[in-house]
């Protein structure tokens, strides 16, 4: 009896390899001993209630917070040991961060085109015409009328601001995107549009994503893999639909069963 063996051609090297990541706030644990690998093109969701450590973890990855211990290896290099300028360069080119509140990720007194172009220039672009053209192209890709390129984000709706923040982050063609509650605080219909947009961009650009959210519906539609955090520690992780439909840990069961029916 011969069982056919499918050649599952998978990349062997993770894009990001996190180990022992720990951060405390005095005596209180922020996150503790977090370990995971993220592969090219993979979307990993992190869920947990407020105070579970999911945002601390993301902030440590992004370098917004100092870590107490652990490694964050990106393409063979522990980014936690990088000198600050190199770290900032990485965050402006190869990595992107999407904040829950677009105003934290945008410059509100600079035009929409400027917001997108600024990141390109930080990555080394100099030709004004090309920068403006790329900015226009990106506004279209995130479904903002390019005619509004000279408007300031303060004149945009919440959903548009969020899409602009995404354009600003993705314009440099990053490999890794860290997202903190990207659909939080948006109307349900605006959320759906954003999710659809993100799914398309992830697929077309082959992005690896770590997305922190408390919205189970968002990870079900966006994440391949899911990590459940509680009290700073990972209590369960695996294939998203398996964790949600067949949760093993008591806390995951509680979390999944607390979702209101739609």
């Amino acid at each position: 009896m011969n069982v056919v063996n499918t050649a599952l051609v998978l990349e062997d090297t993770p894009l990001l390899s996190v180990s022992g990541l720990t951060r405390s706030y005095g005596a209180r644990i922020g996150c503790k001993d977090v370990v995971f690998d993220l592969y090219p093109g993979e979307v990993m969701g992190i869920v947990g209630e407020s105070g579970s450590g999911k945002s601390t973890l993301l902030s440590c990855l992004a370098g917004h917070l100092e870590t107490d211990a652990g490694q964050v290896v990106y393409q063979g290099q522990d980014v936690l040991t990088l000198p600050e300028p190199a770290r900032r360069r990485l965050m402006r080119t190869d990595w992107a961060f999407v904040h829950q509140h677009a105003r934290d990720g945008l410059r509100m007194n600079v035009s929409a085109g400027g917001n997108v172009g600024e990141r390109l220039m930080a990555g080394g672009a100099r030709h004004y015409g090309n920068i403006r053209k790329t900015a226009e192209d990106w506004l279209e890709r995130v479904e903002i009328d390019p005619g509004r390129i000279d408007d300031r984000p303060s004149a945009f709706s919440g959903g548009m601001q969020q899409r602009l923040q995404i354009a600003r982050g993705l314009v440099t063609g990053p490999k890794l995107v860290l997202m903190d509650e990207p659909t939080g605080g948006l109307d349900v219909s605006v959320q759906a549009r954003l999710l659809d947009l993100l799914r398309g961009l992830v697929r077309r650009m082959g992005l690896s994503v770590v997305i922190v959210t408390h919205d189970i519906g968002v990870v079900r539609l966006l994440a391949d893999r899911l990590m459940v955090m509680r009290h700073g520690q990972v209590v369960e992780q695996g294939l998203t639909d398996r964790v949600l439909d067949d949760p093993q840990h008591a806390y995951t069961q509680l979390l999944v069963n607390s979702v209101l029916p739609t």
Partner: protein
Amino acid sequence: MTAQVMIRVADVSKNFALHAQGGTVIPVLQGAALTVRAGECVALTGSSGSGKSTLLRLLQGNYAPAGGVIEVAGLDLATATPRQVSALRRGTLGYVSQFLRVVPRVPALDVVADPLLTLGMEEGEARDRAGALLAQLNLPERLWGLSPTTFSGGEQQRVNIARGFVHPYPVLLLDEPTASLDPVNRAVVLQLIRDAKARGAALVGIFHDAPARAEIADREVDVTVFSPQAVPA
């Protein structure tokens, strides 16, 4: 020559532990076994609650087994990494669910084309194929640009079916694929299943529609025999 084994289930057990209810453990399957070869269609039978859906979900990788082996196209889902299961589902393991889970505003045509886009097919060709299948399933073209979340049960089901048949998956799982269909569309679905068998797909399904089951299933497997022995109170 015997066809290749595409699914091999051996000694699989499955329990559900309900932590909110004092850790009550509900055993659902024990000693489950199943072999399905390329070109074969196997129907899971047994009364409601006997574990048909549980076995189907185990085959899809949606549930984790408590023990045993679940090989699908050579990958043991009991031990596979999430990444391996995702890759298997992309190109090898298709699933026609009873439930539609999609981003609310995505048009039906894109919902159906999605598996092809994920496999890297060019957008125009993927949409053409999706449209051809939706036409075959008699979904009116005026609905293709609308989100299927607004559709009737039968229309949603046809979108799900189209999603499952748009790529020639070597293994296909079907959960009540004809449940809410009219006779014309039921016949279309049965033909799709026959075509899939003819191209060598291994199929496992739950069909409450007994005539449909008789028509397309090569074998029936009664999952009642995998019910754990009742534990004396």
